[in-house]
Every structure is written in structure tokens, then in C-alpha cells.
């Protein structure tokens, strides 16, 4: 009897009459009170343990957010700290931050304490938690040091912060400006050369460029560049930053040996007789264009990143003959933009004398499009005027996604795939063999096609890959688990 009542009370499903019974029972029976107190005592001990719990094995339950937080008393003590003015907290706590998770970072180990020393990480990403409970993910290459638990100097690198009320006022200091957080989620990018940027995902941040008198309040969705002593407004790069919830999946991917799997799959593709090109961006000869060379899907690997309008990468492949069948695939990490098109591959020779010239892009509906010059769709097939995928291919939050389009001019079809899964087939009435040649990734000369984000492992193959092959391509290259 008493067990059932206590259970219902703990589950929050107890009814009013049952609550009356429980009260009466507890009032009358000292043994029931003792039983009750002991069960709740275990409950609070479990909660205390869970608050300091770190998941160190590969996740057993998929999709579980790996979340560790400082013991609750830190948050409680920090709320007292705010009350007292906060300054004494520093000398009562010697570590400014603790490493929660290091993914592919050789310079730091899980659980190590960070104080005022400088740190450099060359590859990977690291998740930290400050003494006030702010959660920070820093992506390599990066150089940084804590001045206190509330002040972090970023010389270069990329940082995403999730700041709870107890750490309100957390400040990131860059060579070109400061960002003061007012309890929110935000990102700071300090590129190896060029001005730092602040991006606010949620809440409010005060931004102040070095040397500027005025501070600027940034709200959800705002972003600025610290440009020569002033804040310049720019578009939000929603996917540029690795956040805490992505870290667990990346760590699990590494632990599961995904990197080796990806490399062996690449090696095999390079021997495919139909290969036109496979850009993994690892070669030291840089491809011509305007872009940043940043970290790819793996710790220390490389990928071009396109940030500003006009950023692009040039290539000239497959121009020697026509391609009756063509597979285009890439790993991308793109921002959701209002801009009409993001260019994945735009050939220069797009005009009426060149039927079959290929343009591959992401539309403003975030769907994938494969346009072939002078091709026409089957009338009444439901398409407006171009071959577009069905499902939006860009997630709300930053993530690597795998995009693929398989064109077959003989079957007169294009098939779209998102993360290895078939999405949609579009049928053409007139289908020319595909044509390539000089092309750009990230832009198109004739009309800006701004792409915002990173591209990794771009594949052009002169044959039609099957559903199974696309699925295997995604599975082998997937950085997540």
C-alpha cells in the first residue's frame, strides 16, 4: 500500500485522495516515514551522481545527448557569487575550465584542467566547461588562453559557447574585438588572417570592435565582423560552428573507426575507371580560387570554406567529351541562406550552343537542383521547370550532410540522394549527355551564386551509381555515429 502511494508521488501521477492517504500514513507511521525518507535520499544521491556523470563509452542509446554538467553546487555557488559581485570566485577555484571531451585533439586529454596558460590545438575539436558552467566547443586550428573562468582570449580558431545564467558576462576577447555574453548561445570565428566574427544563435551578446567607442547589442540571428575598429553587419553562418551536441556524435564516429573506413573507400574510388575527379582537398597544391582552407570532416583534414560573396574555387575537368551518365556527390556543411542559389558546381560554358552543360546547386528552399542546359522536363510531371530534390538537404543546425545526384541521359532521369537515402527521381522529356569543363564551386562568374559553408570530398563520376553504391558511399564517409 505505502509503496504504491510513494511511487505515484514520485512519478507525479498521484491523485488528491491518494495524496491524502499518503499524508495520513506518513503522519501516523514512523516506519513509513523512514522508508519514504530513505527512498528520496537515494533519489537525490542519484541526481547528484548524474550531475557529475561523464559518458565515456560509445553511446548505447543512439541520439542521446551527451551532456555533462558541473556538480549542481557550482551553479548554486555561482548564483551566490553573482550576488556577492563575483570577483572572489576566481581565487576560490583554481581551474578556469575543464576538458569535457577532446575529439582528435592530441594536445589535451579528457578531464584535464585549464588555467591561465596558453593552448594551441592543431587538429580536432575540444569541448570545455568553465568553472561557471559555460559550455564551449573550440575547433582547430586554434590558439587560446583563459584569463579567468569568465574571460577567454582567442588568438585564432572557432568557438561556440552555450552560456547559462550563472556564467552571464562570459567574454571572448579577439585581436579585433570583444564579445560579451548575456546568457545565450553564440559563436566566434577568428580566422588565421582577417577579421573576427560574432554570430548570435540565441539570446543577446554585446559586441565591441577594438578601438571602437560604441558597443552594439546583437540579438538572435545577428552577426557582425570586427572590421578595422567597427562592427560590420553580416549574414549569420548558422552551420559554421560545431556545438556540444555534435561533439558526441563526432567522437563516437572517430571511436568507431569511421576515418579509416572513409580513407579506404576513397582509395577504391580513385581506381574507378569512370572517375572524372575526386577532390578530397588534402593535396598540398591548392586549387585556384578565393576561399579559406579550414578543417574538414576529420581532425586535421582540410576543406575549402566559402564565407563572402564571390568566394569560389576553380576546376577544369571532364571537358574532353560528353558524359551520357554522370554521378555528382559531395559532403557539405552549408548555412541556410535567404540567397536564391548556393553553387555546388557551375560550369562556365552554360549557353545555348552547349546543350547538356551542368549546374548543380542548393536552392533557397534548401532543396538540391541539377540543371542541364536545354534539357526539358516531362510535361505534367509536377515540376515547375527544373529538376529539384524533394526533401530540404540542409539541417537547421550545422551538420555535415552527404548530397548526391545521379544523371542518366539514356534513361532520361536524375535521381537525388540525401545522406545515402534515395529522395526523388525526376524524368526528362529531352535529355542531353552532360557536359563539364571549366567550372566553379561556390560561385558562378556570370551571376553571383553565393555558397556559404564548407565542401569536402567532391566526386564526379562518369557513370550512374546505383542506390546501393550511394548508400555505401555515405556510410563509409559519415563522420558521425
Amino acid at each position: 500500500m505505502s509503496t504504491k502511494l510513494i511511487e505515484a508521488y514520485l512519478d507525479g501521477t498521484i491523485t488528491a485522495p491518494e495524496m491524502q492517504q499518503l499524508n495520513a500514513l506518513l503522519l501516523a507511521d514512523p516506519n513509513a516515514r523512514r522508508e519514504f525518507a530513505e527512498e528520496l535520499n537515494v533519489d537525490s544521491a542519484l541526481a547528484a551522481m548524474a550531475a557529475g556523470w561523464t559518458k565515456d563509452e560509445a553511446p548505447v542509446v543512439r541520439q542521446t545527448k551527451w551532456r555533462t554538467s558541473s556538480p549542481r553546487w557550482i551553479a548554486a555557488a555561482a548564483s551566490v557569487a553573482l550576488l556577492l559581485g563575483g570577483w572572489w570566485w576566481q581565487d576560490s577555484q583554481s581551474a578556469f575550465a575543464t576538458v569535457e571531451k577532446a575529439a582528435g585533439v592530441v594536445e589535451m586529454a579528457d578531464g584535464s584542467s585549464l588555467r591561465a596558460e596558453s593552448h594551441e590545438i592543431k587538429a580536432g575539436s575540444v569541448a570545455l566547461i568553465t568553472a561557471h558552467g559555460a559550455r564551449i566547443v573550440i575547433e582547430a586550428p586554434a590558439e587560446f588562453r583563459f584569463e579567468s573562468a569568465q574571460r577567454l582570449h582567442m588568438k585564432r580558431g572557432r568557438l561556440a559557447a552555450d552560456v547559462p545564467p550563472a556564467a552571464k558576462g562570459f567574454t571572448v576577447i579577439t585581436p579585433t574585438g570583444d564579445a560579451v555574453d548575456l546568457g545565450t548561445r553564440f559563436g566566434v570565428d577568428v580566422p588565421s588572417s582577417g577579421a573576427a566574427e560574432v554570430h548570435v544563435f540565441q539570446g543577446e551578446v554585446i559586441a565591441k570592435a577594438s578601438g571602437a567607442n560604441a558597443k552594439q547589442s546583437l540579438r538572435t540571428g545577428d552577426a557582425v565582423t570586427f572590421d578595422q575598429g567597427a562592427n560590420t553587419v553580416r549574414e549569420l553562418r548558422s552551420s559554421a560552428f560545431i556545438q556540444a551536441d555534435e561533439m558526441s556524435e563526432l567522437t563516437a564516429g572517430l571511436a568507431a573507426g569511421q576515418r579509416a573506413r572513409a580513407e579506404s573507400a576513397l582509395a577504391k574510388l580513385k581506381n574507378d575507371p569512370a572517375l572524372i575527379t575526386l577532390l578530397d582537398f588534402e593535396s598540398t597544391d591548392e586549387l585556384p580560387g578565393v576561399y579559406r582552407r579550414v578543417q574538414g570532416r576529420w581532425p586535421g583534414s582540410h576543406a575549402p570554406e566559402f564565407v563572402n560573396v564571390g568566394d569560389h574555387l576553380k576546376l577544369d575537368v571532364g571537358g574532353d567529351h560528353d558524359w551520357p551518365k554522370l554521378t555528382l556527390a559531395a559532403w557539405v556543411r552549408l548555412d541556410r541562406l535567404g540567397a536564391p542559389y548556393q553553387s555546388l558546381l557551375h560550369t562556365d560554358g552554360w549557353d545555348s550552343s552547349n546543350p547538356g552543360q551542368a549546374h548543380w546547386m542548393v536552392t533557397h528552399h534548401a532543396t538540391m537542383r541539377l540543371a542541364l542546359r536545354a534539357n526539358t522536363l516531362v510535361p505534367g510531371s509536377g515540376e515547375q521547370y527544373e529538376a529539384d530534390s524533394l526533401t530540404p538537404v540542409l539541417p537547421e543546425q550545422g551538420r555535415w550532410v552527404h548530397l548526391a545526384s545521379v544523371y542518366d541521359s539514356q534513361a532520361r532521369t536524375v535521381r537525388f540522394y540525401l545522406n545515402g537515402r534515395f529522395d526523388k527521381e525526376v524524368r526528362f522529356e529531352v535529355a542531353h549527355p552532360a557536359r563539364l569543363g571549366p567550372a566553379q564551386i561556390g560561385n558562378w562568374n556570370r551571376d553571383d551564386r553565393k555558397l556559404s559553408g564548407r565542401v569536402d570530398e567532391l566526386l564526379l563520376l562518369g557513370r550512374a551509381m546505383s542506390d546501393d553504391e550511394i548508400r555505401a558511399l555515405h556510410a563509409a564517409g559519415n563522420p558521425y555515429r
Partner: protein
Amino acid sequence: MSPAETERHHRFLRSFTAHEPAIRAHVRRLVPARADADDVMQEISVVLWEKFDSFRDGADFKAWAFGVARFEVLAWLRDRGRDRLVLDEEVITKIAEETTADEPRLEQQREALEHCMKKVPGYQRELLMQAYQPESRIQEVAQGSGRTVAGFYQWLHRMRKLLLECIRRALTQEVAS
């Protein structure tokens, strides 16, 4: 701040952080949910600091804090617990008095949890820790484990029961040895 005030802050913080888990456990035994305990703890930390002047050096900080905590729980119940199903004031007073006296044993029980958790198979331990994460959603954790919410609650009761049995056994053996 004067050096004397600084010193006072340090003394408060040392005592508070040392006894925070015990104070929280005390509060938890008196309110319906863990989230309620979090709520009340916020208030308590503020009140303890405000009243720290009246705390005599050398006295028992934990006992003093338990007294403040009980008062704050009752105030919280009158304030926010009005339309919730909660323990009667009389029951709270009794449990608070008894568990304050019994705190050394209850503290041993909390400490013995770690020992007993080691006997729980890895997967179940992980599931327990997930369910007890701050801000965890039981519905999601239940789903992830392939149980219904009601079934998951049943499982949680069973686990707590097993753990409590293990804890009691461990403490009896400790006394015996």
C-alpha cells in the same frame, strides 16, 4: 570590500559548498520533485548568505542550514505548492526533525550509492544516469530504452529499491566488520 568582509565571504563559501549536497538532499526529502528542490535551493543559498551574520562561528553549519531550509520549504509550499499535491506541514515538520537527527546515517547511505552503482550492469547504469540528468526528458529516455513511460517509471522504482537494499546491506556489513 574590506579584508574582514572578504574573509567572511570565504568562510561562507567554504561552509556552503561543503554542505550543499546534504542541504539539497534534505530539501529533496520534503518536496515532490527534483526540480522543486532546485527552486528552493536558489532561495536557500540567498537566505543563508543574508543570515550568515547571525551564524555563530564554531556552531554546526549543516544543522543551522537545515533549519533555514525547512523554513524555506514551508514558505515555498505556501507560495507555489498551493495547487500542487504536496506533503502536509505537519508531515514535513516530522520528517525534517527526524531526518535531521538521522542525517549521519542518511549521509552514509548517499555515500554508499557509488559502491552499489558499480554492481549495476553498464547499460542500466547509463540509462539511470540519463534519466537523472538535469533537464532530462523521461519520455525520450523511456523511448530510447524501448519502454513505455509507465514501464520506465516502474523500472526506475525497481532500480531504486535494489540500490537501497544494496546500500543497507553494505552499511550493515561495514558496522559488523
